[in-house]
């Protein structure tokens, strides 16, 4: 058990390190962006004095490394600072957006993950059957179409033509849960289409891999029913890869949904970050990327932990 704890802690440490490096990269990256927020904000009308004044006002005249250090010092105290663009408290700004992003991600995930595992298992069970092939083709089709297209088509049919769902998924603090659900349906469906195929195929693959192993043949020779063989003998050994797949997909759901946000006007983190990049709102970009990277790392960590904890060799050392 100790060994496991050690491994997990080790992974965790690595995660933190990664997070730190990411912050540096992002900061440098934003530093290198042509022009800065002052110019970006003032646009065509910018006159040198304006820019200079705004820079001073935003404290951009301080050297970069100092700003970076200060930024960390504040973050450690849980203060992400305020947006350069409109002086709003970033923690607050992001809290709302993050909540939205997570909500959408959770909805999409809670649909796609179970489906993916189910379809995956069935496909593995009846592989090369008509079912397997057709599911394969359908899901492939789903991943093959660009997100925004799927989104537009969904809007065309379910929103414009049928009017079942709103084409705008704008939600805010006082939107009721079911209202939210109703509004994020289309985006959620879009996202599901994107990740379902991927997950399902991986699940199928990893299970089929296992089915080739000797103990599965043994299970058959012990006269175990097909389903039991899958559920009881294959699945327990497939958790590690499956967890990994799910982690990656979830990460995607959190960080990769900018396009969907844009199309459905969903106030999530992605849109915020893209805007902030274009307006050089460094603290916001920093905060967002921290959160994104954090999510990614956390999910992978969880996947690792799952694979550690489902590995009998580690769980029950000699």
């Amino acid at each position, binding site marked *: 058990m100790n060994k496991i704890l050690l491994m997990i802690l080790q992974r965790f440490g690595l995660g933190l390190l990664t997070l730190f490096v990411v912050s540096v990269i992002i900061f440098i990256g934003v530093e290198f962006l*042509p022009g800065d927020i002052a110019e970006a904000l003032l646009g065509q009308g910018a006159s040198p004095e304006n820019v200079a004044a705004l820079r001073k006002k935003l404290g951009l005249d301080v050297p970069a490394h100092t700003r970076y250090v200060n930024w960390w010092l504040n973050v450690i105290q849980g203060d992400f600072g305020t947006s350069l663009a409109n002086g709003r408290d970033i923690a607050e700004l992001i809290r709302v957006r993050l909540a939205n992003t997570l909500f959408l991600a959770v909805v999409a995930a809670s649909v796609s993950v179970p489906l993916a595992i189910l379809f995956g298992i069935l496909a593995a069970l009846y592989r090369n059957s008509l079912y397997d092939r057709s599911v394969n083709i359908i899901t492939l089709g789903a991943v093959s179409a660009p997100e925004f297209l799927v989104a537009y088509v969904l809007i065309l049919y379910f929103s*414009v033509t049928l009017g079942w769902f709103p084409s705008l998924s704008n939600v805010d603090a006082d939107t009721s849960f079911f209202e939210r659900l109703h509004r994020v349906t289309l985006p959620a469906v879009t996202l599901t289409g994107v990740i379902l195929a991927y997950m399902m195929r991986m699940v199928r693959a990893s299970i089929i891999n296992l089915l080739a192993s000797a103990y599965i043949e043994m299970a058959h020779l012990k006269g175990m029913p097909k389903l039991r063989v899958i559920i009881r003998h294959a699945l327990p050994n497939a958790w590690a890869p499956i967890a990994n797949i799910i982690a990656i997909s979830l990460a995607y759901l959190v960080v990769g949904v900018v396009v969907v946000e844009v199309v459905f006007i969903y106030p999530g983190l992605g849109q915020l970050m893209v805007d902030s990049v274009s307006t050089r709102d460094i603290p916001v970009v920093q905060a967002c990327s921290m959160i994104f990277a954090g999510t990614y790392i956390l999910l992978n960590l969880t996947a690792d932990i799952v694979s550690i904890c489902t590995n009998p060799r580690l769980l029950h050392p000699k």
Partner: protein
Amino acid sequence: MKKSKIEQIIHQDTVLKQALNDPRITRRDFLAFAGAMGLSATMGSALWSGRALAAGPTRGGHMVSGLNGANTSDSLDSGLFIDTFMICVSRAFRDSLVDVAQDNSMEPALAESWEASPDAKVWRFNIRQGVEFHNGKSLTTDDVVASINMHRGEDTTSYAKGVFSGITDVRVDGNTVIVELADGNADCPALFGDYHFNIVPAKDGVADVLSPHGTGPYLLKEYDPGVKTTLDRNPNAWHGDGVAHADSHEVIAILDDTARQSALISGSVDVINRPALKGIARLKKVKGINIVDVPSNLAFTHPMRMDVAPFDNMDFRTALKLSTPRQEFIDKVLFGYGAIGNDQPLGPQFTSYNPDLKVDYDLDKAKHHLKKAGLEGVKIDLSASDTSYGGAMDAAQIFQSHWGKVGVNVNIIKEPQDGYWNNVWNVKPFCTCYWGARPVEDMILSIAYLSDSPWNDTVIKNAKVDELVVSARGELDKKKRIAMYQEVQQIISAEGGTIVPAFGTDVAATQDTIGVADQIGGGWEMDGGHYLKRWWKA
């Protein structure tokens, strides 16, 4: 007050003249004309037989709009406004001293009335009494002064700094705020109608630029930059029943054209701005949707730096101008929503606009001029990017093909979108650009067409223009000013370094339940940014 009435009459008088001798008579002109003849607006529009008629304003209802021109980095600091979303919102919950009325005349707002000294150097604005900010604080002259000063001085970050640079002193005299200008400016009131200029409460003498409290007819209920804003009626607004028809507003930022359009069609929103012109023909056909279009002063300019060869050669410039396909530009880049331009920046909405000034499409003449310049087969670079204006890349190609016909080989340079205004515009010898509408001629001319203008993107140094602009600024006699401005237009069009194939048209689309006055402001899109309080939901 008296003055503005006079202005109005003169204005309509001009329009009347135009209406009579202009073959391209526009609906607005006609209505103005009709108005001048004493016909009621509604009858006028009946005669015009335009789109389905909206009944008179009805009060109440909840209006949902989806607007482009928003960004999560938007701020309540009116000095930093650059686009429609914030302008409209701000116009709904804040007031200016002066408003640009739907007929483009100057209309009193928080300033009940104003007078100018004969030399138009000193202006007295009488501040409306008994007005309260939404937080209950009552409006004082200090607030006004602070609100003016936030755009002045070295360390101001206001984008309107240039606009207010002419002000030398602002002081209070009882209920009157006195503004002194370096030199006379008859358009001074217009400065205070500029969308950057909002009256915000002062905190110990300094404007509280981020304050959510204004004096406007609506209360800022919820404000999420780049996402949405909700407004409720201000129970104790000083404005009469003339404005703020809807009880409440929800303004959603929808940057994606397709999303904005489908939001309208699917009925999620009542109003959108900038419907994608590509699909507008089809949008028109959709039942229950109205298109609201207003010719604007937005100018699509293509500045050539006249100190760089070959653009320093007037014949060469003329050759380009003569071979510029203006109608095709309007058809393909603006999808028909625009007015033919004449290579000078003052748009058809200006009282001084001279519709007779035209630049025709004549390849032979163009060839002749090019020959004269001895520049046949010359190779030039045109820096373009869709950031300068939507469709700029397409436009560049259209120009390329036509200028090619007269023997000018154009090499289109795709400029990166980012930093376009810093690294390309006003730097590269020839690029695509636009100039947003300004309420008065002087605002454009003095910041871009004087020898010493800060943004003289064509590097024009023309003594005559300089002189005309300065004197027109101080000229209180409308007729004289118009004459002067028309001469300026004449000179720039003939000798200047910009190609203006067209002036823009502001387009919005609404559900037919949305009522819109027959004549709406052109100073900025969405009824000069006033639509939230001027349009109504039937």
